[in-house]
């Protein structure tokens, strides 16, 4: 099976996966299993946002909104079509993909900050519709929905979330290391240069946005059936802020960075729970300091240091 000896990177990855798989047997505390499950949810959102911002070079402010689209589509289809939550999650994923195709097709031809502004507008319109159309969505009270698994323990959810996260990271790894991944990075570096060598940048952008948004909606749908409640909070600005903080602190433009950042900040956030109001203040401070002084984030900076100490790449 191993045609070549396992690289240190591969070894560390394997170690991390084994550690995450065995954690529920080590930590017997349901509360921390719950925190980790939420952490995995954020890790998926941060990883997918990172593909847009860190590789394609497009900052989307509609990311949390796509999680909410998936969550609402799934919860509403479970409620009205009486389908099983698993099918609901599939419907949520498709809904995210369809919406992202239209939004991406319309707004991804805009450059840089114009794209960001249009995603902000789409996200806000979605939030206003959800809040105003009270009869369908129960407005800001939130829509109660069925749980994915009937169980007293969080452990089954832990493994579902972990599977979703591993699937996201692995598929992202495959895409980034394929010919299409090179196209993504080429467009991210310079759209003009990419066009000049014959890359259809519009297609690359729309397909990437579709992939990212479908996964985000799937994660959002899962989150809804995990908590049992879908509210406009899922797509709120705070959530977007959290996703950005996690990605930036962990290391934007690196594959493990967002996962590390999400788990770290989720733990941090639980420890800081008693400081409530200072939590987002600290996270905002972290975003500013990291972006200003450690642009490559925790993972990127550590990697750089290790390489410079080790002497060889």
């Amino acid at each position, binding site marked *: 099976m191993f045609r070549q000896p396992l690289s240190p990177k591969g070894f560390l990855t394997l170690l991390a996966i084994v550690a995450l798989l065995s954690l529920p047997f080590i930590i017997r505390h349901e509360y921390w299993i719950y925190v980790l499950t939420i952490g995995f949810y954020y890790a998926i959102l941060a990883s997918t946002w990172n593909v847009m*911002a860190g590789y394609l*070079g497009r*900052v989307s402010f509609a990311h949390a909104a796509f999680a909410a689209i998936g969550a609402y589509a799934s919860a509403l289809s479970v409620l009205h079509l009486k389908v099983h939550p698993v099918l609901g999650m599939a419907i949520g994923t498709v809904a995210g993909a369809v919406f992202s195709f239209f939004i991406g097709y*319309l*707004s991804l031809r*805009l*450059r*840089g*900050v*114009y794209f*960001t*502004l*249009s995603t*902000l*507008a*789409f996200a*806000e*319109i979605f939030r*206003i*519709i959800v809040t*105003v159309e009270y009869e369908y969505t129960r407005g800001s009270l939130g829509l109660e929905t069925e749980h994915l698994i009937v169980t007293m323990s969080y452990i089954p959810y832990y493994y579902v979330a972990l599977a979703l996260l591993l699937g996201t990271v692995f598929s992202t790894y495959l895409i980034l290391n394929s010919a299409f991944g090179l196209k993504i990075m080429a467009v991210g570096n310079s759209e*003009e240069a990419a066009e000049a060598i014959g890359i259809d940048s519009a297609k690359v952008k729309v397909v990437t946005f579709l992939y990212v948004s479908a996964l985000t909606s799937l994660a959002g749908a899962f989150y809804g059936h995990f908590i049992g409640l879908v509210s406009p909070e899922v797509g709120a600005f705070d959530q977007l*802020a959290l996703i*950005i*903080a996690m990605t*930036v602190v962990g290391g*934007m433009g690196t594959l493990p960075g967002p996962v590390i950042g999400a788990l770290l900040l989720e733990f941090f956030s639980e420890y800081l729970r008693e400081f409530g*109001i*200072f939590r*987002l*203040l600290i*996270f*905002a*401070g972290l*975003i*500013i300091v990291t*972006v*200003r002084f450690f*642009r490559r984030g925790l993972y990127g900076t550590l990697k750089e240091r290790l390489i410079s100490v080790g002497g060889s790449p």
Partner: protein
Amino acid sequence: MGVVLPIVENLITGLIMGSFYALMAVGLTLIFGVMRIVNFAHGEFYMLGGYILYYLVTLLGINNFVALPIVMGAMFVFGMAVERSLLRPIITEGLGHEYSIIITFGLSLFLVNFAIAFFGPEYKTPPPYIPTYRIALGPISISGDRLLVATLAAVILVLTYLVIAKTKIGLAMRATAQNKEGAMLCGMDVYKVSMFTMGLASALAGASGALLSTILLLEPQAGLIPAIKSYVVIALGGMGSIAGAVAGSVILGIIESLGTVLISAAYRDAYSFLVLILVLLIRPEGLFGVRVREV
């Protein structure tokens, strides 16, 4: 007459609201013109301006009209400090738009939560500039204090225009907006121009907050809606264009007021987003903007 009267009244309200949007939007468009970035913390500059006025008036007992220039001065210094500490690498290291979006977004988040933690999350009402009274124009009645505050906003706008059109630093700003490298070659200090631009824009946003928060309510997230509206305005008017920002403000104020009467009030805040999307899709360079090709 039954339908026309509310429409005329809302038209006037729209014009008054437009003058506040203009104060925010002109600052935003100046930043974009000179530095090629969108400041996502602009709404928080507005909010800070409101709080500084509130504390000057309630704690130190300073008159509103005296406090207003102090607010603008303080926010001018604050804006320059933000440029020097956070935005400088954009010029020195030639960083892309991801950096400017994320750092100003982080700053916005920081300031909102700073205000929640230290000023408190509850609503505050700064004392008005003059007591509330209404002016009757035949069958139409207008709020007099709103009209006064809108007039102050217009005076500040005219002064800003004079700074940009008639002073040396204004000339340097226009030159930098046209061609940064060219301006540098002519011996202009682009760092100083950027710093001044941030200071001026921040002072304008602060003035807008100091004026409008006496009419609307003041809270840590009070800047969010005015900021979003000013993004719409500068997209509508063409990013970087001052005349466009003023015209866009008036147009948006009117669209919103008429939409509220003629279509639905619940979706009031959604109209501006719809306008934003339509403008970006149909005419991304805005009504007054010039289509530029990037190389």
